[in-house]
């Protein structure tokens, strides 16, 4: 990094070659103390996510692949970072594992994490990770709860928290600034002011921050940013469900959904309450945890809707309800084999109860819906049921990521001088860069890869390349050893990939003795048993 003053942005995960997992972004302020003229340096991080496809790296030998940050966080087995390079704070945009999943891993590595700042909902999801990882409460890092509209200061860095609209409440965008420049970091968001639980994007707030000074760089969610139209808003999803539930109010309804989709769960339960339908959560542990996490974060849905009962599936409470008065929210939206719905379709009547005249609503279309569609069509008990998909009612489907019109809406309000994609593979980043420049916004011309940095000042942006494109690989089985650091060389060097894999494989065979071909997922019970064996 050059020693000139500015505000530096460096993606450390999420701006990958092939995908967008493992979000992590460093912001470094370098400015002079006006009195002494001394250069001061402050660094913060936004998000510490995990890569969701560990099999793509190092022959899948690791349980976790996470951004390697030993240059700013003290990690056992690595030289401690220089005092002025230490990260002062870790801010979390929202509670999905590709943004927070590495936090528990860093705790398990024995790293000295800086104080964490996030919403109550994100904190709850983070604590769920700690609980599941079996981390003793005394070792949990300090978590400070923040709200939209808060202003935080970390040395010379000022952060303003902004409400974002994603598929989980408590999601933030951040305005990051110092005396030299201002960056607006969207996190994962769409331009939806109707987000069900917490109000969504507050465009009035956007106007307010712009009146305080120009946005020199906007790092923008590139996941679906060039898809035409705008992402379906939560209010529209709510109406689509409500209309269908009303139409079939005398029948049991089966609604597969992604259990972690907290925003959607709330929108659907609201639609049920409007029509006096009781709710059975048949989604297993993740759905229960999402519901309980919402409750503990102040979104107590049973309290919001006292006219209906919300109960867990397969419980004594569920058994007492007349099925025709119920809507069953169930896992298995992608036709996952273990989910109760798939099991029922394959002939296991005990997996869940479906009435002979039930109505099914599945919100997906295209390839992602095929597996479930096939299961439902081939099962004698479901093939003749009235079934709605997003093909029939498009507003049933709504993602949490911005599309083209969302980009236009957000960029028009913020008027950034330059736009840079985040949460985007090289391909997605190129597409967003093209679209942004067509729309008249400045871009950096290419994807900024993990480990590179951009110096931002009021005069413009300058890309500074460096070699720091590293991941940590970490496994439960070797949790007493420091994490392995490896380079991500997949960006540019197609031919090198096979060579890298071969070399790494030989290295591990020598070092560990064997390389698992298809590493088996360790169940929680097995993991606990292993920890006991080690005398934990």
């Amino acid at each position, binding site marked *: 990094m050059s020693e000139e003053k500015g505000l530096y942005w460096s993606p450390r995960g999420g701006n990958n070659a092939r995908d967008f997992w493992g979000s992590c972004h460093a912001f470094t302020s370098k400015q002079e103390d006006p009195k002494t003229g001394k250069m001061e340096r402050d660094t913060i991080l936004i998000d510490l996510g995990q890569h969701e496809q560990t099999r793509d790296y190092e022959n899948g030998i690791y349980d976790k692949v996470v951004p390697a940050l030993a240059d700013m966080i003290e990690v056992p087995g690595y030289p401690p970072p220089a005092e002025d390079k230490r990260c002062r704070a870790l801010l979390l945009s929202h509670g999905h594992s590709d943004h927070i999943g590495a936090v528990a891993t860093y705790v398990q590595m024995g790293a000295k994490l800086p104080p964490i700042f996030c919403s109550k909902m994100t904190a709850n999801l983070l604590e769920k990770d700690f*609980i599941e990882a079996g981390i003793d409460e005394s070792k949990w890092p300090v978590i400070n709860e923040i709200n939209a509209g808060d202003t935080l200061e970390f040395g010379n860095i000022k952060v303003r928290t902004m409400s974002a609209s994603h598929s989980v409440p408590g999601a933030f965008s951040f305005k990051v600034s110092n005396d030299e420049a201002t960056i607006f970091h969207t996190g994962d968001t769409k331009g939806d002011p109707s987000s069900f639980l917490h109000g969504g994007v507050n465009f009035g707030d956007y106007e307010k921050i712009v009146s305080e000074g120009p946005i020199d760089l906007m790092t923008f969610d590139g996941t679906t940013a060039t898809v035409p139209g705008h992402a379906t808003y939560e209010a529209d999803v709510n109406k689509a469900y409500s209309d269908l539930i009303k139409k079939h109010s005398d029948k049991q309804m089966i609604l597969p959904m992604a259990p972690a989709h907290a925003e959607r769960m709330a929108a659907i339960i609201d639609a049920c309450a409007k029509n006096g339908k009781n709710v059975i959560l048949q989604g297993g*542990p993740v759905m229960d945890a999402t519901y309980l996490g919402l409750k*503990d974060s102040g979104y107590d849905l049973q309290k919001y809707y006292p006219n209906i009962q919300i*109960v*867990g599936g397969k*419980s004594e409470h569920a058994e007492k309800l007349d099925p025709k008065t119920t809507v069953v929210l169930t896992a*298995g939206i*992608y036709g996952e084999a273990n989910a*109760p719905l798939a099991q029922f379709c394959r002939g296991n009547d005990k997996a869940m109860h479906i009435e002979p005249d039930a109505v099914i609503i599945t919100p997906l279309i295209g390839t992602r819906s095929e597996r479930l569609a096939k299961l439902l069509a081939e099962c004698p008990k479901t093939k003749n049921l009235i079934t709605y998909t997003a093909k029939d009612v498009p507003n049933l489907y709504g993602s949490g990521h911005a599309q083209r019109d969302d980009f236009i809406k957000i960029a028009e309000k913020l008027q950034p001088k330059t736009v840079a994609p985040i949460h985007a593979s090289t391909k997605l980043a190129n597409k967003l860069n093209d679209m942004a420049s067509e729309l008249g916004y400045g871009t950096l011309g290419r994807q900024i890869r993990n480990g590179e940095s951009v110096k931002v000042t009021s005069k413009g942006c300058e890309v500074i390349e460096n070699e720091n494109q590293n991941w940590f690989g970490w496994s439960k089985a070797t949790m007493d050893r420091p994490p392995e650091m490896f380079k991500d060389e997949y960006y540019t060097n197609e031919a090198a990939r096979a060579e890298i894999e071969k070399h790494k494989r030989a290295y591990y065979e020598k070092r560990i003795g064997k390389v698992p071909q298809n590493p088996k997922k360790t169940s929680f*019970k097995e993991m606990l048993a292993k920890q006991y064996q080690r005398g934990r």
Partner: protein
Amino acid sequence: MTLLIEIAQKLEEKYPKTDLIGVSDADLGKMLATVGEHANHDSKWLNKLKIAWTSARTSEDDITLPYD
């Protein structure tokens, strides 16, 4: 200190049909006593215990969840 997840594991073995969504703090307290946890716990802790319990309940859907 006993880990939340270990207590949850014991509860799941003893009460596999409990409605984690609807269980009251009072009922949860009673169940806790039967597995040898007698201390008084506040509602926040009990909620964390419920979340630990969902994790201990590995039965039906070990599924990957792509985020949208």
